[in-house]
């Protein structure tokens, strides 16, 4: 049986949702134009006035905001209200440049936590559940978001924060946690550690997990579900829009419902900025419809995904987004086909390889070439040449199926791909396309 936290809005008709969005966007654009000089300047430069925005159909007239704008406007440039009305900040880790600092009024916190509460209820949560939150608490939005959502649902909340796996497991077993919230990689690690300690999946009381904040594959979902004996649900969000809960998975486990009464989603062509029709793959853009303190309009997430309004088995009517398939800034166009490193990584993980790989794109005789170097684990190589070549060929076939174009795969010994500090260099593009 599907459960809803706010059934009237979560199952509202398309017309009702549209009416809410149209009303909110008119107010929101006016609010931003009056209070955020940075965005007012962008609108003026584009010749767009608040009166031009009469509903969500007019959102496409508004200028985009990008990560670069957030850097330029740091820290107060995009603030939409007096600091005296703000009660909280959250911040990104700043791994890809300057930190993003987002501000919240109490109204903003409430709507964020409501979104997280919808996600928890969609995963089967009720006030009888014990919800173990092992996302980090603090500046990171994961812990505070799910913590707030768990309170709203009325779960007994275990505010564990991340790390200290022995303690996580002790609380999980002693206090009969039924819902686990953390990153998918940490869920997988907890599963492994439980097995090492001799616990079977049926020894814990967990029934569901809400996992997000990093990319994960369907294979990883199945493996976590098995190791913990649960249903694993995806959750999506970013600090710029509030945090986790912008979109969440329901019992159908086939894409995440975007909370459309608060966030308007568009898919655009990352090259041209043109809005693409429903069902197209492109960059996800969010417009916050009713946030006060950090009201971003047309924020480019750089996540590539697909939106669908097909009827969902859970009864929710809000648009669904696919798992992000990559980042627009990672996208390569090879022989006219869009290719993401994440697709290649998915194939490698599916076929049992490590995610230690390097993609080399080049242009030979006016034709693009795609080479993928893949590190083998010591136990994966054979002393027989043909056996290794069979592995290369199998990977080439799997990648061609996934990408639509055929790469050349090269197997390498362990540790032959240079690790840089922090993030690995995944793509080397040798094409000189911009002389």
């Amino acid at each position, binding site marked *: 049986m599907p459960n809803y936290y706010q059934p009237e809005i979560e199952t509202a008709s398309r017309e009702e949702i549209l009416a809410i969005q149209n009303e909110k966007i008119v107010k929101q654009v006016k609010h931003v134009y009056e209070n955020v000089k940075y965005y007012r300047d962008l609108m003026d430069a584009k010749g767009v006035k608040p009166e031009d925005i009469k509903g969500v159909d007019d959102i496409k007239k508004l200028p985009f905001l990008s990560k670069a704008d957030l850097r330029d406007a740091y820290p107060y440039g995009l603030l939409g209200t007096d600091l005296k009305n703000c009660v909280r900040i959250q911040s990104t880790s700043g791994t890809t440049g300057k930190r993003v600092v987002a501000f919240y009024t109490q109204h903003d916190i409430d709507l964020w936590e409501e979104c997280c509460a919808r996600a928890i209820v969609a995963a089967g949560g009720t006030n009888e559940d014990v919800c173990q939150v092992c996302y980090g608490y603090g500046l990171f939005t994961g812990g505070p978001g799910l913590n707030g959502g768990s309170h709203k649902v009325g779960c007994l909340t275990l505010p564990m924060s991340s790390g200290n796996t022995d303690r996580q497991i002790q609380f999980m077993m002693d206090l009969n946690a039924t819902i686990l919230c953390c990153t998918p990689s940490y869920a997988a690690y907890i599963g492994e550690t439980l097995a090492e300690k001799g616990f079977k999946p049926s020894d814990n009381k967990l029934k569901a997990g809400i996992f997000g904040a990093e990319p994960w594959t369907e294979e990883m979902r199945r493996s976590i579900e098995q190791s913990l004996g649960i249903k694993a649900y995806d959750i999506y969000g970013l600090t710029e829009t509030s945090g986790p809960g912008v979109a969440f998975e329901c019992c159908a486990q086939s894409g995440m419902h975007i909370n459309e009464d608060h966030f308007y989603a568009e898919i655009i062509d990352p090259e041209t900025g043109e809005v693409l029709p429903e069902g197209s793959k492109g960059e996800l853009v969010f417009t916050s419809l009713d946030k006060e303190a950090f009201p971003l309009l047309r924020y480019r997430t750089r996540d590539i995904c697909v939106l669908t309004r097909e009827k969902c088995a859970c009864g929710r009517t809000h648009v669904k987004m696919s798992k992000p398939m990559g980042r627009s800034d990672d996208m390569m166009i090879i022989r006219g086909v869009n290719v993401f490193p994440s697709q290649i990584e998915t194939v490698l993980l599916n076929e049992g390889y490590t995610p230690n790989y390097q993609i080399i794109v080049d242009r030979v005789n006016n034709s693009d070439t795609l080479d993928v170097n893949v590190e*083998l684990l010591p136990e994966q*190589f*054979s002393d027989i*040449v043909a056996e290794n*070549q069979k592995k290369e060929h199998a990977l080439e076939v799997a990648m061609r199926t996934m990408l639509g174009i055929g790469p050349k795969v090269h197997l390498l*010994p362990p540790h*032959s791909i240079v690790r840089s500090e922090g993030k690995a260099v995944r793509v080397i593009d040798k094409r000189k396309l911009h002389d």
Partner: protein
Amino acid sequence: MAIQQISVFLENKEGKLAEAIKAISGANVNIRALCVADTRDFGILRLITSDNAAAKAALIDTGAVLVTDVIAAKMEDSAGALSKILNILAEAQINIEYMYAFTGAADLGAYVVLRVDNTPAAEAILKAAGIATLSDEDVKAM
């Protein structure tokens, strides 16, 4: 008797083979026999050594190291000796993945190293045909 062969998976790149051999010499291991298979992307260095454990430890940082069982069969140093061994294996429908030959330092005997798809069966058949094969102890003492 099967013997142990050490295989190293190397990047097909200048200096990689030198690096691997240097690692072995640093461990004071003597190479009895070797064979290199090369492909576009990688090379496989296969070694019969005087001390497999030491060789493996020395090579572990240079590439992936694998220990497999191979057969080292003694041949008469005369025309037709290898052909005889291969015919015996062919008749028993044993597939040879690869092979290479070497000469024993002490006895100056001719040996062929065989990597086959069914080592125990190949051993039994060669033994029944009166063909001597080396053991790890024999290799060590060579």
